[in-house]
């Protein structure tokens, strides 16, 4: 199942345009960050952090797009019923599609490596940045793959699934745009820690900008880890409820 889903995703035409768009976006953003760095508007550590955060955020977004389309897309194309008719379990179907969606993150991360290396070379930050980025990005990708599959399994249409997924993603990003004052105090701290996105990106910031050790701020990873476990688990749990609706015709 996973093998075919990977094949569909990568040779079926969806993944390559997404990766191309990702490459262009990361290139442009890295260029802007590098320009700011050259003008001394940014410290080098901040430049690495910014580049990595963009890669993690957009890479995760791509995973959401991939997983959000996974089941509702099959439903809309009229191919879901044929899949459900095979002896493959619904859970295997969800897991296969989830792993295929996660491959998008791995590819996005691989594309980001040269940019991170370019921004971080010379200050011994590349290794930490890549490991930290991979860990945080993978947790967020797992979370969004699960979330996308969950929504996709329950949604009646692809449009609804993708709209709801993007809405959820923007809601998760929203705390990063709050004024600094709103992020302080116990309520602000709680908000940042509960949200897997802000929490994970905050951890990366501590690691790269403040030069903390990996274990020093590990509590900031609680939320991403919990989300990375719960969202895929929920998607697998609702897999048995995937069915053709009364009167549903492709």
């Amino acid at each position, binding site marked *: 199942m996973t093998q075919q889903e990977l094949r569909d995703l990568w040779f079926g035409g969806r993944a390559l345009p997404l990766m191309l768009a990702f490459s262009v976006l990361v290139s442009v953003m890295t260029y802007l960050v590098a320009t700011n760095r050259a003008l001394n508007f940014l410290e080098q550590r901040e430049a690495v952090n910014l580049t990595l955060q963009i890669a993690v955020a957009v890479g995760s977004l791509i995973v959401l797009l991939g997983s959000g389309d996974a089941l509702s897309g099959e439903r809309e194309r009229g191919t879901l*019923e044929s899949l459900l008719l095979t*002896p493959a379990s619904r859970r295997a179907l969800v897991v296969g599609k989830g792993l295929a969606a996660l491959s998008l993150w791995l590819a996005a991360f691989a594309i980001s490596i040269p940019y991170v290396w370019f921004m971080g070379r010379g200050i011994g930050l590349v290794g930490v940045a890549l490991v930290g980025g991979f860990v945080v990005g993978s947790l967020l990708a797992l979370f969004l793959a699960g979330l996308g599959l969950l929504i996709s399994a329950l949604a009646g249409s692809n449009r609804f699934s993708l709209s709801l997924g993007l809405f959820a993603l923007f809601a998760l990003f929203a705390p990063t745009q709050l004024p600094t004052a709103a992020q302080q105090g116990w309520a602000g701290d709680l908000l940042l820690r509960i949200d897997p996105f802000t929490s994970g990106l905050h951890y990366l910031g501590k690691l790269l900008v403040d030069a903390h050790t990996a274990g020093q701020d590990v509590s900031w990873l609680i939320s991403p880890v919990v989300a990375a476990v719960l969202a895929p688990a929920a998607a697998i749990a609702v897999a048995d409820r995937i069915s053709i609706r009364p009167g549903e*015709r492709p």
Partner: protein
Amino acid sequence: MPPALETRGLTKSYGSLIALAPLDLELEAGVVLGFLGPNGAGKTTLIRMVSTILRPTEGSFSVAGVPDDQPQEIRRRIGALPESAGYPDAQTGEEFLRYHARLYGQSGRAARATARTLLEEVGLAERSGSLVSAYSRGMRQRLGIARTLVNDPQVVFLDEPTLGLDPAGQRQVVGLVGRIARERGATVVLSTHLLAEVEEVCDRVLILHHGRVVANGTVAEVAERAAAPRRVRIRVPAELRDRAVAALADADIDADGRPDEIELTIPSGVLREAASGDALRKLLAADVPVLGLELERGRLSDAFLEMTEAG
């Protein structure tokens, strides 16, 4: 050998709406069942339930001897073509079949062989490398039927496989259905609106109306139940026709027809054999020689319309 399909009180309802009233059905192996009914009669609902896509509200069923509490085992033994099934446009016909063969646990090599054999069987071997998006509707339906056969199923469910096809496409699909039954020995449940194709390939007919079974039997039995008028043509010497008509009129049998032929209209509810026997006895008693006799078969379309137009 267990029945190919057995249902006991199988019911599906959505709130107060009954999609399928309790259904008891037993279908022996190797039979081609024509599954008829107007839109919304419950045909697709029944096929989806017995192919484990929909859960019944009540009742139980077994397919090829496997009870409904083992849905994965049932799916291993059946092939089903949903109504208006979709196809991945980015795959070739062979890739599509290979993928499904792999989902049934076949190795890569076996899946490739299965795909090629089936494409040959449904007449798509020359287009095996073409993208499905380039297939015509008829080709897609044949590909869909090939997909239902990747696991060499014991029971095949085909939900409106001729929908939207031109007459040539319909002929190809009907021919294919007949071959599946003959050459593979599979039981086929064919849901369709084309009554002519049912008469051609089906052994038995089940007619559903408003979720209830209104007819179940062989094609001839169901057709015979039609109340629509049927006819018997009896050839008699032209010079004795008037005597023949008079003899039949004495017996309250209405006769009509050409100068050398008497056409009898058989009232509803009367078997054509009985009616024609009565007529023959009257003619022989009146010393009218019978030169020929032709019984017009009851038509399935008459039976279908009669059973589904009321209410």
